[in-house]
C-alpha cells in the first residue's frame, strides 16, 4: 500500500503525459516509456553508444516510430489486439536484442509498455556469448581440424569481396560453430563442383539463436513466423550495407529461408535494390514462391535453379506456382526448356511419394513400386536424353 505522500511524490511520474520521453521531443510523434523501463532503455542506448551494431539498429528503429504507424504493418512491427476500453492500439516491435510492446494512445502518442531484452547481448561476463549472439560471423575452414570455425563480427558487415557467399543458417543450434559446420556444407552445393574458393577463403554466416527450427510444413508462410523477425532486421541491415559489394550470394539453409525472405521483405518495403546479387534456397522450410517474388522486386540476378527443395512435394508445388512469373520476367534465365525439365523432375518429386503410398495401400507393393518409379523416371530420362541429343545436333550443324 502506498501512503498518500508517496503517491503525491510520484504523481508527476504516474501521469501518463509525463512519462520519460525517448524520442520525438522536437518533431514527430512523442514516444515515451513507462518509468520502470527507463533503465532498461538506457542500457540499450549505452550499448548503442559503445558502438554495438545491433543496438544501433534497435535504437534507430525505435526512434523511427516517430513517423507514426501508418504503413508500418511490416515484418518487424506487428499490430496486436485493440484495447476496447480506451481505444488505444497495441503493436509488437521485433528488433535485434529485444522485443518491445508499444501502445498507441488515442492522442496519437506512443508509449513503450514492455521491453523484453535478449540476455545473449549483455552477459559479457558469462560464458560463450561470442558464439551465441545473433549476427554476422566469419567462417573459415581450419586445415588442422577439417572443421569450420565461426567468429563474431562486431560491425555486422560481410567481407567486401566479389562473389562472397553468405550462409543464412537455421535456428536451433547451440553455437555459431555448430551452425557453420551444419549449414555451410549444404549452402556450398549452390556453387556446384566449384567449392574450392569457399574452402580457401571462407564465407560469412548469419546466425540466429533460438530453441526451435524455423518454418516447417505447418508454418510454411515465412512472413507469419515470429521467431525470426528480429534476426531478419539484422540481416536486412547487413544486406543493405553490402549492396555496394559485387555479386554476393545469399544462400539460406533449411529454416534460414524464413530469415532471408523476411529480410528481403524489409528491403522491398524500404525500396532498396540489390542488383547483381543472387540468392539460393537450400532445402527451404518456408515457401520459395514468396522469396522468388521478392527476389524479382529486389532486382536480384537469379540462376535457373533457384531453390533445391529435394523431395518435398510442397516445395515443388510452390516453385511451380511461380514458374509463369519467372518465364515472363525478361531478366530471369528461367525459360521454357528449363520449365519442361523442372516439370518432369517435379512430377517425379510429387508423384513418387503419392505412387508409393498408393502402392503400399493396394497390396503387391514391391512390383508396383518398381514400375511406378521406372515409368515416371523414364519419361524424365527420355526427355533429358532428347534435350542433350538436340543440343549436340545444334552444336554440330550450327542451327
Amino acid at each position, binding site marked *: 500500500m502506498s501512503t498518500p505522500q508517496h503517491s503525491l511524490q510520484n504523481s508527476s511520474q504516474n501521469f501518463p503525459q509525463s512519462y520519460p520521453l525517448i524520442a520525438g521531443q522536437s518533431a514527430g510523434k512523442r514516444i515515451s516509456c513507462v518509468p520502470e523501463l527507463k533503465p532498461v532503455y538506457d542500457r540499450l542506448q549505452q550499448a548503442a553508444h559503445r558502438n554495438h551494431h545491433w543496438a544501433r539498429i534497435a535504437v534507430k528503429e525505435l526512434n523511427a516510430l516517430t513517423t507514426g504507424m501508418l504503413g508500418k504493418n511490416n515484418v518487424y512491427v506487428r499490430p496486436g489486439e485493440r484495447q476496447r476500453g480506451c481505444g488505444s492500439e497495441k503493436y509488437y516491435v521485433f528488433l535485434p536484442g529485444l522485443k518491445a510492446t508499444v501502445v498507441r494512445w488515442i492522442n496519437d502518442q506512443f508509449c513503450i509498455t514492455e521491453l523484453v531484452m535478449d540476455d545473449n547481448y549483455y552477459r559479457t561476463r558469462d560464458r560463450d556469448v561470442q558464439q551465441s549472439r545473433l549476427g554476422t560471423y566469419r567462417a573459415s575452414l581450419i*586445415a588442422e581440424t577439417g572443421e569450420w570455425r565461426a567468429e563474431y563480427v562486431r560491425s555486422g558487415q560481410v567481407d567486401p569481396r566479389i562473389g562472397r557467399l553468405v550462409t543464412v543458417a537455421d535456428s536451433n543450434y547451440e553455437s555459431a560453430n555448430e551452425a557453420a559446420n551444419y549449414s555451410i556444407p549444404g549452402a556450398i552445393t549452390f556453387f556446384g563442383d566449384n567449392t574450392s574458393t569457399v574452402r580457401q577463403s*571462407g564465407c560469412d554466416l548469419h546466425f540466429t539463436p533460438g530453441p526451435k527450427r524455423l518454418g516447417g510444413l505447418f508454418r510454411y508462410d515465412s512472413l507469419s513466423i515470429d521467431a525470426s523477425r528480429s534476426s531478419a532486421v539484422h540481416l536486412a541491415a547487413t544486406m543493405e550495407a553490402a549492396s555496394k559489394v559485387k555479386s554476393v550470394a545469399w544462400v539460406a539453409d533449411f529454416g534460414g529461408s524464413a530469415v532471408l525472405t523476411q529480410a528481403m521483405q524489409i528491403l522491398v518495403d524500404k525500396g532498396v535494390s540489390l542488383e547483381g546479387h543472387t540468392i539460393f534456397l537450400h532445402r527451404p522450410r518456408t515457401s520459395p514462391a514468396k522469396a522468388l517474388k521478392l527476389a524479382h522486386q529486389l532486382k536480384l540476378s537469379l540462376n535457373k535453379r533457384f531453390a533445391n527443395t529435394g523431395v518435398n512435394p510442397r516445395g515443388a508445388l510452390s516453385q511451380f506456382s511461380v514458374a509463369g512469373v519467372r518465364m515472363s520476367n525478361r531478366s530471369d534465365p528461367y525459360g521454357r526448356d528449363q520449365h519442361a525439365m523442372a516439370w518432369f523432375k517435379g512430377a517425379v518429386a510429387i508423384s513418387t511419394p503419392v505412387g508409393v503410398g498408393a502402392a503400399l495401400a493396394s497390396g503387391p507393393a514391391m512390383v508396383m513400386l518398381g514400375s511406378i518409379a521406372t515409368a515416371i523416371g523414364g519419361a524424365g530420362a527420355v526427355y533429358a536424353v532428347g534435350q542433350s541429343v538436340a543440343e549436340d545436333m545444334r552444336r554440330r550443324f550450327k542451327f
Partner: protein
Amino acid sequence: MRNIFKYPPIEWRKRHEYTIPQGPNFSWASRTRLNIAGSHLQITAPSHSPRHSIIKQTNSYPGHDAILDSPAGLHTDFSMPGGRWGVACLWSRRWAFYGPWMTGCKGELFTAIAVIGWSDSHRNSKFSFLNPKAFESVLINYLNDRYGHENWEGEMAHVPRYHGPVEWRCHDHLPVPSASFKIYNRGEDLSDLVRPDHLFVFPVSDEYFVVVTTVQDYYSRDEKGNLAFDTRPIQKLQDKVLGSITLKLDPETQAKVDQVKAEVGNMKLCKEFAPLKWPTNIYPPEPADAPEILKSLKAGC
C-alpha cells in the same frame, strides 16, 4: 558402457536439468596407425559418432604415409597469414554425449590429428624440429600464425580473439619432446575466456611436427547460462584418447634424436610458457617520413 536404452541418441524432451551424460564406450575402441615420414603414430579411439551425421570423419588409408607417399609435399594453408605452413589433417573423430531418457545431446568431444611443416616457399632446413629449443621457437611462430593474427576488428583491433598458451605441460612419455596446452577463445573482455582448444604437439622428423587438437563442445545450459550437466565423462574420454597416443620412430629419425640428445643433453621442452602477446598485427605502420626522429628518440632512452 553406455546404456543405449536409457541414453538414446534422440532429443524428444529437451531439458536443461543437471545430468550426467554418457558417451561412447572406450573399451570397444579400435586402434589406428598413422604413418608420418616413416614413423608410426598409434591412437586408440571409439568409432565416429557425431551429433549430426553430416559431419564426416577424416581417415588416412592404411599403409599410406602422409609425407613419403605425397611427393608434392603438404598443401599450403592460406587461411593463415604469410602462407608459411603446409598442413594436412590425417585423422578426425567426433563423439556425442547424450543425456538420459531422450533429453538429447549434451556435449561433444572432437579430436583431430594434423601434420604440419614449412610450406614450399618457406622451407628452412637450417635447424631440426627435433631439437627442443628449436621446436619451441617454431611453435611460437606457428601459434602466432594460427591464432595470433585474429583480433576484434575496428576500434577493438587491439583486443585479441585468442588467449594462450595456458596450462602448459611438457611430457616425456614419447621419444621426442612434447607438450600440451590450451588456447582459449577470448571475448571482448579478458575475463571472458571460453571453449579452449586443447593442443598436444610434438615433432616427428626434422621438418614435420604433429598437432593434436581437441575441443569440447557444450550444448546444455540453464537459464543463467551455467552448464547444466557433468562434463567429467567428456574429459575422461579425452584423457583416455590422448593417453593412448604412442609414437614409434623411424630408425633414421631415432638416430637423429640420439644425436640431438648427445648435443643438447636435456630433451624436454621448457617448464613454463607464458601466454604470447597477441594480436600480432595491430601495430600501426610507422610513419615513413620520421624514422630518423624515431631512431634518435629510441637511442636517447
